[in-house]
């Protein structure tokens, strides 16, 4: 049950404690490489891979227990990799104040694991005390903008650092929305000083579902504030009219059309740390590793042409 790497050698030889991390402080910038979502079944393979991924990302809530194997595993990967701490349940998009208990738990993780990146979603999941375990949508209005901004202010106050906000994938729209998503997000950045996590699959999913062009969304998106990119697989269903409705399922390889969009983004903006998310129907490690390698090739290419572009600019 326990992966072998925890039973001998590694953790005994290098006790997990602050100061032993290879990438100690979040102030050291995370490299613009590809990372993967960390799953316990991949622990041994990640550590043993001769070609290590650039970073790992975890869902914060999975590490909010008091102790046991999850913390042991995270301490172990954290010794070797920069970490991105990705919150899923803060419910930033809802009208009610954030849970102070949940904020305190989140801050404890930030303090303990010193992640290079911290992110949360433009979505909600809790009403009163009931938690619905999904990233639910919200209308984009002056009122919801005020709620979201005050929640982000609160979260950044508590954790004492900037967070990245992730754009959602959605299946419905609201008749009472008065702002479009990119304007809404741009205004959040302006008011709160948060950064952005651009999920390219989410853009593609929402664009397909709502019949807009993903390229025009991206052209309208404040790219200069993006600190991380997400890539993930989606599933295809049908909407009420029998047209394709894409589901943000995280259970498959990244779709070709999403790779194409991603290439365009990276060519335009230069290399950005990029995470491949795969959360259910988990593949064997080599398959997930290959997805990250594919992202790395696009990042590499961009790094070269980006540098060349800069040297040309300097030379001119």
């Amino acid at each position: 049950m326990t992966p072998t790497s925890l039973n001998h050698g590694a953790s005994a030889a290098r006790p997990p404690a602050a100061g032993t991390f290879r990438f100690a402080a979040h102030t050291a910038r995370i490299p613009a490489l590809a990372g993967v979502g960390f799953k316990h079944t991949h622990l041994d393979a990640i550590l043993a891979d001769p070609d290590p991924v650039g970073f790992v990302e975890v869902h914060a809530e999975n590490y909010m227990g008091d102790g046991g194997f999850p913390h042991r595993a995270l301490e172990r990967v954290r010794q070797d990799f920069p970490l991105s701490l990705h919150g899923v349940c803060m419910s930033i998009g809802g009208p009610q104040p954030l849970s102070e208990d949940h904020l305190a738990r989140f801050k404890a993780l930030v303090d303990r694991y010193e992640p290079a990146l911290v992110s949360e979603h433009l979505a909600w999941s809790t009403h009163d005390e009931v938690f619905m375990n999904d990233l639910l949508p919200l209308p984009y209005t002056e009122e919801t903008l005020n709620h979201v901004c005050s929640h982000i202010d609160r979260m950044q106050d508590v954790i004492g650092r900037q967070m990245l906000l992730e754009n959602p994938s959605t299946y419905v729209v609201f008749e009472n929305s008065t702002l479009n998503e990119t304007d809404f997000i741009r205004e959040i950045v302006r008011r709160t000083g948060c950064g952005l996590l651009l999920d390219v699959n989410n853009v593609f999913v929402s664009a397909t579902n709502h019949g807009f062009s993903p390229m025009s969304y991206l052209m309208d998106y404040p790219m200069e504030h993006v600190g991380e990119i997400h890539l993930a697989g989606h599933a295809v269903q049908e909407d009420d009219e029998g047209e394709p409705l894409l589901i943000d399922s995280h259970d498959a390889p990244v779709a070709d059309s999403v790779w194409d969009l991603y290439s365009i983004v990276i060519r335009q903006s230069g290399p950005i740390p990029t995470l491949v998310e795969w959360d259910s129907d988990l593949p064997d490690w080599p398959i997930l590793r290959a997805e990250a390698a594919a992202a790395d090739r696009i990042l590499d290419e961009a790094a070269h042409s980006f540098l060349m572009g800069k040297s040309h600019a300097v030379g001119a």
Partner: protein
Amino acid sequence: MQSAPEKSDLNAAGFRAAILDPVREKPATVEGPRGKQAVKRFNVYRNNVTVSLINALADIFPAVMRITGETLFRDMAREFVRAHPPVSPLLFLYGHDFPAFIEHFEHARRMPYLADVARVERAWLTAYHAADLEPLDPQALAKIAPEDLEGAMFKPHPATGLIRSPYAAFDIFDANRNRETIGRIDVTRPQDVLVTRPGMDVTVTGLPQGHGAFFASLIAGDCLGDAAEAGARASSAFDINEAIGGMFATGAFLSVTTEQT
């Protein structure tokens, strides 16, 4: 906990009610783009919520699901999820009231042992996430004066859970969690089950006769002398030295105090 504002552009209360009740219509403000319908679209959220919570229960209670079969389990879990949605975003805390729900679930009545197997599985997950604390060292007893031993009281380790069942809860749990094929089990044999985590791995122990009463008494805060009496009352085969050995072998306790201190 502050309540959400009653009126807001996101009608969160209405949204939540519609998510958890499949008969209710979608919230009025929710629609498809450019005049499209949003019945199937809203159902994506309904489905995400319900299915992800059913899956969470399936992850917590795999032995229960193996016993009932997937269809009955998911029916039972769906009803539970809608009646008792989580009240914390930490899903590893979910399902503490699932065993009691199983007890009253009509289609599970012919499996009266099922709820206790669920209690063992729920205790397993609590132990898995419990704080990393060293269990009480056996040497601690040697430091207590012999005349004080009877009055010694023990604080349970945070991972410790005890399930006292009129059915063979340990055998059924063990067979369905850990064995490829399941032999004959006499389900009517009463068993007490102790769940502990002395290191990183959760340990589930089927207790000898009388030990369930002994551990229950200690966990309730009784002194060692009273717990020994409870054990002896429960079984003529109860042996106090064996029981004390079990306290340390399982790592069920964290610390000891005597009445004097």
